[in-house]
């Protein structure tokens, strides 16, 4: 088992290396390089730009620059934001709690919807409930998230006035209830896609599990149907599902970018779009590296969890 873990971790290293090369290549594909924004400014003299280039080490061979950048990234030196001059690491870290809150709630919401939907439709295949749920699931994965967010805002915040349309808290009210009300719409938007995809996956996973012989055996032994479904079949179906749910992390990041921007939720996603609009490359690059690393770590966890949970796969 330990050898397996070591092997998987060892594989993750080259992956991160490839990603870092990609990201580094992107930032240096900007016409003019990282000092691009100074070039258009008539008040900045060419000599100053040259000085800046030398100071930033931009006149050195590309591979040396890459090595320096990589070393910096690994030691937590993520550079400084072009927008407000503060260290990128600080700007990113201060936004993490909000994003975690949003993603966490969305995951819980998606699970609460997907698990019953997947299990029940697996048991009642071919029924109208199954067809309706399946159609809804297809709809869920086809939804443009930003449009769904706008529509929800329109209906619930503008027309009906039940829920606030943006932000994480109201200005003068930081109570739990207020924060909860602000959380509802963004979490719902982010959860929709995953609830749809997960319910479909869980359904097929459950169908396979229910066909297993041990289910027939359990029923023959007289176990109540509910127990057979939940304590036996569901646990088996849960196994691949856990991996799939964790592997959706990358998609959830993209979803968070959209959701946070539309709802002005002060998280990492909103930071990314702000940085995009102002061409703050240092923040964007750090964001890409950080999220990719998180996804890879989650993939690793999913893989290891799968192995650990399934006694049949003894390393």
């Amino acid at each position: 088992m330990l050898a397996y873990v070591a092997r998987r971790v060892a594989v993750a290293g080259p992956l991160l290396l490839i990603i870092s090369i990609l990201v580094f290549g992107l930032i240096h594909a900007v016409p003019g390089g990282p000092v691009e924004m100074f070039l258009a400014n008539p008040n900045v003299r060419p000599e100053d730009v040259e000085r800046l280039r030398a100071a930033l080490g931009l006149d050195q061979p590309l591979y040396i620059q890459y090595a320096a950048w990589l070393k910096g990234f690994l030691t937590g030196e993520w550079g400084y934001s072009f927008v407000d001059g503060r260290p990128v690491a600080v700007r990113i870290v201060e936004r993490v709690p909000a994003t975690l809150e949003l993603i966490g709630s969305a995951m819980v919401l998606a699970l609460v919807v997907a698990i019953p939907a997947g299990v029940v439709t697996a048991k009642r295949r071919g029924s109208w409930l199954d067809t309706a749920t399946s159609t809804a699931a297809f709809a869920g994965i086809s939804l443009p998230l930003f449009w769904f967010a706008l529509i929800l805002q329109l209906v619930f915040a503008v027309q009906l006035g039940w829920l606030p349309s943006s932000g994480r808290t109201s200005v003068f009210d930081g109570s739990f209830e207020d924060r909860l009300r602000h959380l509802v719409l963004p979490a719902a938007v982010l959860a929709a896609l995953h609830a749809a995809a997960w319910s479909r996956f869980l359904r097929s996973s459950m169908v396979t599990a229910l066909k297993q012989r041990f289910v027939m055996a359990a029923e023959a032994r007289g176990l109540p149907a509910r127990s057979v479904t939940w304590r036996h079949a569901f646990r088996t179906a849960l196994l691949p599902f856990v991996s799939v749910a964790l592997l959706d992390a990358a998609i959830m990041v993209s979803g968070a970018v959209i959701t946070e921007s539309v709802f002005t939720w002060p998280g990492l996603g909103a930071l990314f779009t702000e940085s995009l609009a102002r061409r703050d490359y240092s923040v964007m690059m750090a964001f890409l590296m950080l999220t990719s690393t998180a996804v890879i770590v989650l993939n690793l966890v999913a893989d290891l969890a799968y192995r650990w949970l399934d006694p049949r796969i003894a390393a």
Partner: protein
Amino acid sequence: MAGLGMLLLLALLAPLVSWHAPDAVDLASRRQAPSLGHPFGTDDLGRDVFSRVAHGARVSLAIGLLSAAITGVVGIAIGASAGFGGGWLDSLLMRITDAMLAIPRLPLLMVAAAIFEPTILVLIMLVGAVGWMETARVVRAEFLSLRERSFVQAARAAGASPLRVVGRHILPNAAPAAAVAMTLAVGRGILLESTMSFFGVGVQPPQSSWGNMLYQAQSTMATEPWVAIFPGLFIFGTVFSVFIIGDRVGDDGVPA
């Protein structure tokens, strides 16, 4: 269902039925609700929403289909090489695939589009460049299993060159799975393009795209909801139909 999907797509392919030019600014008829003259209403500048949606359809569908074509070519090439070649080539290609899958697609695309100017051609290439991974994986899996089949072994024993074995025997049998993956890529491509346009790094105005129409609709959404409802509805409907078609193709191997 699939029939409805095809119908919808066909209807969108002939958007030359717009009797108002999509760029025709008509300040006298600004912000009108849907009516006979303007089935989807007018926007902030008096432009007819229906014709903008119709012209946006051409852009979105073009990007979706062409990027899926790129996805297919790249994905099949990589998947076939990995699946058939095996060994270090397989490992290398799969590492690259995994790496690309780990980076969240939307932020990556948005950064890339901000760096390279987002013309339609560039957008097609970018969207295609981030969509090949799923197709590659599917094709690789097919190749890995087909490689061991008896008819392939027979062909190799008869002395067929690897190229012939791949092209004549394995590829045709891997085609259905690849087709499903490519269909899904069309849907994903449309969603990605519209999201990028919504954030301003996709199709640039005055060219109308469903995404950038929604971006412009944000400010007037409360009082003129039709500008926000229709473009998004079309994105949703198109992608929905595409996914359903993909599902059907997967089931029977033929559309509808």
